[in-house]
């Protein structure tokens, strides 16, 4: 035994806890403390007093090894035993402080870089390579979040515009209310207001919106939806209330339809997609490009169709409201992606022009950006590359 190590024994700790302490003493305390099996060899004894029987074992040890120091661990705030006490969850600093005070050693200065340089030192841990074989059944959306695939018809090909030119502005606006998108949104409002399923019929297409589970049912395949979204409904949409039985019948009819593989989707996923097809990289006509827009919170991007740069746009708008053109400029990306993102987020009630002070819901918190951008960028590139590889494997699997 080295001179500067203090032996610690334990009462009431199971194998897992012991392993954790071993790791902690070895790595964090750099071997100043070691766990020993016999209380007779120990200077300090840790006692988990929440474990039945540990009180008796403690009393026994206090008689046999009166010179030992005893430290209680418990979920309670304190103990009735008049002993030093550490409340669970155990804070490493308080644990070290108590141990150091008993061991009369200099407090550790080295506990900072503990883990990062342990890469090669983890041999004593139970190495276990887990099989990566898992269920590859993905939803139609999963696996498509990263990497700009613009074969979707989501963004059109509008060039960037100058906000000073009003003719330019009309080029990048559209009228959601007049289109299929408007009918769907209206149907959703009615459904929510009446707490009842609604069948929306417009341009010869029917969908059912069930607000009780936020689902949309339809038999119309995507290849038909996409062009339909560009047509005006001429205010001829119909909305029909469906009772519970009627809904059941309709849903089972829709679900038995073999024409489409995805007859049911989350309402947010559906609205997001419909909006992207309708807007094609444009913004609703009542958007003021000179006024900043806010984003109330991050969209659930893992379950929504991919918009190139969506996480960056979201991060920027969450940090503070900004005008859409300025966002595109700051991120150095085509405006149509920012416009498409805004339109889709607007449909989900997440984003709008920040007209009042209160619209900038959260004050941006200034955090020191201590990370170098080059390393963040490397991580980003790495993820993007792997995602693309993952996607192509996925496509192959789907094709088979």
């Amino acid at each position, binding site marked *: 035994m080295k001179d500067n190590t203090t032996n610690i024994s334990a009462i009431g700790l199971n*194998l*897992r806890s012991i*392993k*954790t302490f071993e*790791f*902690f003493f070895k790595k*964090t305390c750099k071997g100043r403390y070691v766990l020993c099996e016999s209380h007779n060899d120990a200077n300090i004894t840790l006692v988990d007093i929440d474990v039945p029987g540990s009180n008796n074992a403690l009393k026994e040890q206090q008689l046999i090894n009166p010179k030992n120091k005893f430290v209680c661990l418990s979920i309670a705030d304190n103990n009735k035993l008049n002993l030093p006490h550490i409340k*669970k*969850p*155990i*804070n*490493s*600093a308080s644990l070290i402080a108590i141990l150091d005070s008993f061991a009369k050693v200099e407090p550790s200065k080295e506990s*900072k*870089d*503990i*883990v*990062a340089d342990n*890469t090669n030192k983890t041999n004593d*841990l*139970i*190495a276990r390579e*887990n099989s*990566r074989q*898992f269920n590859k059944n993905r939803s139609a959306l*999963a*696996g498509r*979040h*990263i990497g700009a695939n613009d074969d979707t018809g989501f963004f059109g090909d509008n060039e960037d515009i100058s906000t000073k030119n009003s003719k330019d502005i009309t080029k990048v606006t559209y009228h959601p209310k007049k289109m299929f998108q408007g009918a769907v949104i209206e149907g959703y409002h009615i459904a929510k207001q009446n707490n009842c399923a609604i069948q929306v019929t417009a341009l010869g297409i029917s969908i059912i919106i069930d607000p009780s589970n936020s689902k949309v049912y339809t038999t119309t395949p995507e290849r038909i939806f996409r062009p339909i979204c560009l047509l005006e409904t001429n205010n001829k949409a119909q909305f029909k209330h469906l009772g519970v039985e009627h809904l059941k019948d309709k849903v089972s009819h829709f679900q038995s339809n073999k024409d489409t593989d995805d007859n049911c989707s989350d309402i947010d996923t559906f609205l997001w997609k419909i909006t992207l097809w309708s807007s094609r990289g444009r913004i609703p006509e009542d958007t003021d490009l000179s006024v900043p827009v806010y984003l109330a*919170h*991050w969209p*659930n*991007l*893992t*379950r929504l169709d991919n918009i190139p740069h969506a*996480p*960056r746009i*979201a*991060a*920027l708008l*969450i*940090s503070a409201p900004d005008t859409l053109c300025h966002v595109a400029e700051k*991120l*150095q990306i085509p405006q149509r992606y920012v416009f498409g993102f805004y339109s889709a987020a607007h449909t989900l009630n997440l984003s709008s022009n920040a007209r009042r002070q209160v619209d900038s*819901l*959260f004050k941006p918190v200034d*955090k020191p*950006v201590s*990370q170098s*951008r080059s*390393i*963040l*960028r*490397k*991580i*980003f590139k*790495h*993820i993007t590359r*792997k995602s693309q590889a993952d*996607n192509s494997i996925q496509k192959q699997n789907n094709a088979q």
Partner: protein
Amino acid sequence: MVSNNLKIIFSGPVGAGKTTAIQTLSDTPPISTNESASDMTKKRKRETTVAMDYGTMNLDGNEKIHLYGTPGQERFNFMWDILTSGGLGLVMLIDNTRKDPIKDLLFFINSFKDYIDKTALSIGITRTDLRSYPRISNYHQALKDININVPVFQVDAREYSDVAMLVQALLFSIDPGVGTDNE
């Protein structure tokens, strides 16, 4: 020695998918200190992590990002602040099938408060395929109540694209300008 900053922490309650998420992302065979679970944990799953998970993302130019997973069980909490000295930020995973996932969320946010204040946070809600409530909007509401506005996504820890989105959101929360090419 590796810079302490090149580290991402994964945390969350027992069985939320921390070990799995690190396996999904890691370019090297991950190391876990898993054991077959006994007592309470066993009711929910066969294995649990006792000390930590470890994996790496191997970047260009021989650089590595170290991925660390904290043990989920609360009694191993003291590992948490060991693992969270420095680093890029925290990916928090919450298991939607647990008894009160919103309470889990608040507990973990509270436990890592200092760390989150200093770095960045993204939150993945796992197992929504098994139980759809609470909804993502409920999580946002709970976060809004404590004035926190961070990315929250439905994720499956086994899916690369889901876990990668959590990491991306973390990066962009630190610096939205990261993806710009010509600087």
